[in-house]
């Protein structure tokens, strides 16, 4: 996987398309944006911004061999924010118009009482500097019939893999989002964000035992890319394999042991264990277990972790964040030492640092927060086989469901969906999903081996914070972590 490759100039096309969308459909132009911002600035506020959004989402889903429903949702609105010091006022409306933006601005500025004269806002176009996910066909414009046919193919293919597969559920979810951000410092930038996703879940039944296997994939790219049979069949094979494997799984061991994490989605370890703890808001307020640890060793030598919003086509990638700051590649931990936090504008300003392009929000109805994009550990040099061989008695965890973290205590969990015992350096019996728990600030200090096989996940992650969900990515090479608590039932 290579890091960002942003060719300058191309970004103008996407941004221009988004601007003309809002101009043509909603009559929004630079002078109307400035007028709405002026309303907010009539009070003593430091900063104000507008966020316009127009999102179409469609999903088609199948169960019991039938595409039972097609859904189509339109979400549109404007969110207006005023900031004064640490204080934020926020109001939003589901109507995209100058009038509703001004009305919302009048509400948002209520955090400040005093009126004041101010210079009129001068809008200046901002450039993202990269165009990471332009598509020829919006995924929501692909005919529903195409998606229906595809789901039927997925269903018959999955059932043909093994007679024990008794249920197949699958869905295709497509989103096409237009956003426009304008701020009192003159920032004005627009973007068009496609997002596609395919999910397949199968139920395997054998006697009285039933197990589910799930696999999904997606990103910001043409739906055609996922529709390639070579690609989706591999995903279905995986879901089938996991369900069948879990039919044979034994009870998981319990207790502290050495754990080998496989490449890709197990990167959720980074997201939970350290990612959230390095978000600017928690560190500005000093409520994170990582507060005041800048420049200190928080991971073993050789561990480098980055958050990179600029990888073309990835689910967690963004051309600009939801405050108009261009995304970038931020190094969080360099060779074991904490070197960077992820920032939105508010927290960057209050901490006296630069915003890092991590100010994100779920929709116009939500205030921006510092959030992750694609978070991963850089590859090391070791052979994954050798890493497994180095463990005498432990757990090999290959795939995970969700995770969660307590930012303040630093304790995090993530739940395995595919795991095996390691016995004498060899992969042993599959074990039932177990939750792994650890302490964020020190777990990476116990990384004793890093493989050369860095992989990013398939593109299914959604991160929740303060009730807001945003798409994210994770990645990891095979690593060995010593003394991690495995939450099984076999003492």
């Amino acid at each position, binding site marked *: 996987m290579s890091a960002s490759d942003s060719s300058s100039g191309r970004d103008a096309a996407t941004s221009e398309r988004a601007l003309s969308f809002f101009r043509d459909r909603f009559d929004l132009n630079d002078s109307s944006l400035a007028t709405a911002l002026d309303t907010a600035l009539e009070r003593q506020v430091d900063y104000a911004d507008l966020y316009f959004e127009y999102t179409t989402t469609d999903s088609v889903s199948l169960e019991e061999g*039938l595409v*039972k*429903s*097609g*859904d*189509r*949702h*339109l979400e549109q609105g404007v969110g207006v924010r005023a900031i004064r010091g*640490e*204080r*934020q*006022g*926020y109001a*939003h*409306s*589901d109507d995209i118009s100058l009038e*509703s933006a001004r*009305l919302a601005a*009048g*509400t948002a500025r*209520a*955090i400040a*009482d005093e009126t004041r004269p101010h210079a009129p806002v001068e809008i200046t176009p901002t450039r993202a500097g990269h165009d990471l996910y332009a598509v020829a066909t919006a995924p929501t414009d692909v005919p529903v*019939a195409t998606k229906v046919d595809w789901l039927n193919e997925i269903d018959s293919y999955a059932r043909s893999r093994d007679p024990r597969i*008794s*249920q197949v*559920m699958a869905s295709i979810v497509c989103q096409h989002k237009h956003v426009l951000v304008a701020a009192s410092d003159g920032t004005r930038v627009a973007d068009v964000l496609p997002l596609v996703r395919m999910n397949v879940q199968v*139920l395997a*039944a054998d006697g009285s035992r*039933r*197990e*589910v296997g799930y696999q999904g994939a997606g990103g910001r790219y043409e739906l055609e890319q996922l529709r390639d049979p070579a690609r989706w069949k591999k995903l279905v094979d995986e879901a089938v394999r996991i369900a069948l494997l879990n039919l044979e799984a034994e009870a*998981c061991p*319990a*207790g*502290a042991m050495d754990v080998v994490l496989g490449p890709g989605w197990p990167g959720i370890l980074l997201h939970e264990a350290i990612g959230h703890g390095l978000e600017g808001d928690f560190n500005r307020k*000093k*409520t994170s*277990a990582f507060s005041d640890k800048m420049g200190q060793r928080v991971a073993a030598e050789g561990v480098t972790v980055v958050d990179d919003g600029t990888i073309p086509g990835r689910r967690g990638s963004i051309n600009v964040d939801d405050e108009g700051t261009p995304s970038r590649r931020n190094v969080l931990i360099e060779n074991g030492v904490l070197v960077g936090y992820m920032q939105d504008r508010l927290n960057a300003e209050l901490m006296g640092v630069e915003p890092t392009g991590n100010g994100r929000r779920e929709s116009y109805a939500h205030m921006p927060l510092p959030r992750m994009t694609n978070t991963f550990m850089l590859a090391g040099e070791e052979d994954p086989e050798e890493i497994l061989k180095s463990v005498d008695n432990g757990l090999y965890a290959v795939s995970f*469901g*969700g*995770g*969660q*973290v*307590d930012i*303040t*205590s630093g*304790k995090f*969990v*993530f*739940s395995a969906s595919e795991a095996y015992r390691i016995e004498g350096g060899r992969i042993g019996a599959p074990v*039932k*999903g*177990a*939750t792994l*728990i650890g*302490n964020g600030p020190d777990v990476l200090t116990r990384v004793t081996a890093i493989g050369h096989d860095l992989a990013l996940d398939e593109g299914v992650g959604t991160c929740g914070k303060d009730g807001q969900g945003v798409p994210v990515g994770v990645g990891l090479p095979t690593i060995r972590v010593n003394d991690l*608590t495995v*939450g099984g039932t076999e*003492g």
Partner: protein
Amino acid sequence: MSNARRDTTSAAEMEAIVTHAIEATRRAGASQVDVLVVEGDDREVRVRGDEIEFVKQAQGRGLGIRALVDAKQGRQTSIVSTSDLARDAVDRMAEEAVALARATASDPTAGLPEGGFATEIPDLELFDPQDRNVTLEARIEDAKRAERAARSFDPRIDNSEGSQASSGHARVVYGNSEGFLGAYESASHGLFSEPLARDGDSMQRDYWMTSGRKLADLEDAAAVGRKAAERAIRRLGGKRVPTCEVPVIFDAMTAPSLIGQLASCVSGYSIYRESSFLAGKLGEMIADASVTIIDDALLPGGLGSKPFDGEGQPTRRNVLVENGRLQTWLLDTYAGRKLGMASTGSAARGTGSAPRVGTTNLWLEPSDASSGATLEAMIAELDRGLLVTELIGMGFNPTTGDYSRGAAGLWIEKGEIVHPVEEITIAGNLGDMFGQIDRIGSELIRYGRTASPPVRIARMTIAGA
């Protein structure tokens, strides 16, 4: 603080929009249709230390259309939603809904309920008209009182994530092509405080909250702050315990999650999909005989109460488990038809989704007061075990019942709390866990839609050091 607001849509206007959408969708070719319109007005404030951190105000509207088109051997279904309630926009959505439905498969089970719609809308005391005029200043003051109480509780409370107050009003109108049209108004108010405690290197957070349909139902703001602070302080110095098998008590904040997980496995959808570990167990003992679990949508003032469900069916009190025996699945019309049973009035519906089974006010019945099972008594009775006060992670598999979650709490030896515990997991199987409930608390306090008294499970595996 002054603010400019859009006028809310009147009840009559919303009903007119629903009627218009039903007609437009039928005109476009649907044989059946139902429409949901929701309008909400929400305010939220957060105070941290002496400062207001944010003030958020919003009005939102949404319209959802479910179109059903007759096809060979069944009906084709689509769901469309939008926040644009203008007539011409609704007309376009109606056309789109029918076109979308025609692209899907014919499903012999799909369709609106065949009658049985709610004939009266009971007054469930879902809001207090006085609360509509609550000012932002009043809610800021509540948040400030909670924050001050938390911060001044103990010198070790030196920071916080803040205290947050919210007030929301919503109006729901639902109608369908079978002639049902119903509406109701509801409110919800909340207060939440999340302080941080610090002692040397140990830093811990915890929270306390109160919520209700009426402001008058909320716990005193200062008490919320104090309880939150007390909970954060008692976590200081938490440590792992060795891996072991011991009795585990879930307190009133953590026990409800067990009840919710069990209820999710009683949903008719998970039964016909065979993805619940309870499939095939109707009428069987699935829990200790002391366990009775109820879902009651008609509880006056209940946070989950509603006068009719997401398909216009009357809501009711459903006993899911009685004295340990599984009594019913939770069903809407679709899941009911799949299983050859009638709806239990459990359809939950949002503007952007088809009806699905949901719980309303769900709880585990407390034991009789004569049991003497206060939380204090349950702790005193325990020779060696764990009191769980917080759970993290999503380690529950509904298909198998396998359960493994991160936990924090208090370690108990010889009836006394010895030290806080963290960085451990508790694991078992939900079916076994309900079978091994050997003590249920005598006090039920509803902190949310799902509630439970404290519960003791005879044996679980704790993974730690």
